[in-house]
């Protein structure tokens, strides 16, 4: 959403037509959130469309009674929305598209996994791990693949929201202060 602009130098006409770069970033944050929301809804619909018949065939029926399932679905959509904003912020910090994507994936899949794994050995690291973006999103969606101690879902949601705001702010500051190539 921003790295493609840097890649094709369309940042120039963009920031020439709106030299208040902060406004451009705010607009992009809003659009990123909307795109993330739509993407999250679409992904959830597809996942349910596949999962429900599959689970039914295995003789498992989903329990829609109570709010648990609905909350998890909403949480997943919210996580995707916030991730879109985080991604935009990363793009402002790492302007090279491929580098930005690789850095994000390496962080989420490798670095946070290592920290999470070590966190089960050392309590102090586990305490830090709880507040990292990946762990926070696991807490919100209540999917704990690493058998670690996570925050309560609502707390994880707040922490994740914090990460979203932090990256949006970092992107805003970067776009305002750094030269546009």
């Amino acid at each position, binding site marked *: 959403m921003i790295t*493609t602009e840097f890649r*094709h*130098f*369309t940042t*120039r*006409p*963009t*920031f*020439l*037509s*709106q*030299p*208040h770069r902060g406004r451009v970033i705010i607009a992009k944050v809003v659009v990123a959130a909307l795109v993330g929301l739509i993407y999250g809804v679409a992904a959830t619909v597809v996942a349910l469309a596949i999962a429900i018949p599959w689970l039914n065939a295995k003789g498992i029926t989903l329990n829609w009674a109570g709010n648990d399932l609905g909350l998890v679905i909403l949480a997943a959509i919210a996580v995707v929305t916030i991730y879109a904003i985080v991604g935009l912020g990363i793009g402002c910090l790492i302007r090279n598209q491929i580098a930005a994507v690789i850095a994000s994936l390496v962080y989420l899949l490798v670095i946070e996994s290592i920290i999470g794994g070590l966190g089960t050995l050392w309590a102090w690291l586990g305490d830090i791990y709880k507040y990292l973006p990946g762990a926070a999103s696991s807490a919100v969606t209540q999917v704990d693949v690493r058998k670690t101690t996570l925050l309560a879902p609502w707390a994880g949601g707040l922490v994740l929201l914090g990460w979203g705001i932090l990256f949006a702010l970092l992107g805003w500051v970067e776009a305002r*202060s750094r*030269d*546009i190539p």
Partner: protein
Amino acid sequence: MTEAAAPNRIEARGLTKHFGSVHAVSDLSFSVEPGSVTGFLGPNGAGKTTTLRMILGLAKPDSGEATIGGRHYADLADPTRMVGAVLESNSFHPGRTALNHLRIYCAAAGLPDSRAKEVLAEVGLADSAGRRAGGFSLGMRQRLALATALLGNPSVLVLDEPTNGLDPEGVAWLRGFLRNIADQRQCAVLVSSHLLAEVEQTVDRIVILARGRLIRQGTLDELRSGAAGSVSVRGPDLVGLRSAITVIGPHVTVSAANGESLNVTGATAEQVGRAAWSRQLELHQLVTENVSLEEVFLELTADKAIRGSEVAGL
């Protein structure tokens, strides 16, 4: 009546910018007047693009400032309608058609979509409106970039090496276009180039930059007259002539071009003639050797140290 005070005058005051230890631009001051085309000249790496980016608010100067009509670019009320810019290399998504590319910036500037077609016609790309910009030739890309700059019908144009990739016909067209926009619409046009010959026929004024520093600014005539032209003088008594000429002043240098004539720099033909006359010396020839502007440009921007070592190496 602040409008009368040239709302579209570009002014750079003490612009300075360095990247690490490289001083890209040092204490650069110049101005571009409405209704004129100013050539921004310098060899590659002289700091031209960096300066233009500072004028356009894309790069932040370490010190000094650049203003357009007295305001920083970011403070312009409606930048697209005020300033059009063409920077080096492409600034479009290759998958987008020329028309769609322009429509995006119409929307961003609050201009009607119809402007996109108008500017495409203006730069001679009307027939390629529906083609993807990624497939454009270098010359067409330059025209598309110019079309983007013209969207808001600006009164200031900043162009970085706009003739790159243009065929001779395109260069001639651009010349006429820039002349026209300066004369008819009273635009202030700043056009950079590393080739003087390319802009010589178009520009009114020249700003010469080398290694980030201002070397000279003024009209073409001022630049020519400030150049160290030489006078060739021929006569039977070269020894007498030489001693007569050297007393004209301390800046005068005399060298023997061959056995028959002397080459004089730092003095006019009138001064040389008068010096000969005062000593009753016979002259067979007295000629002012005009230097081309290109030579002046090379002389002003050449790195003397490098040249010297090359000569020494020979």
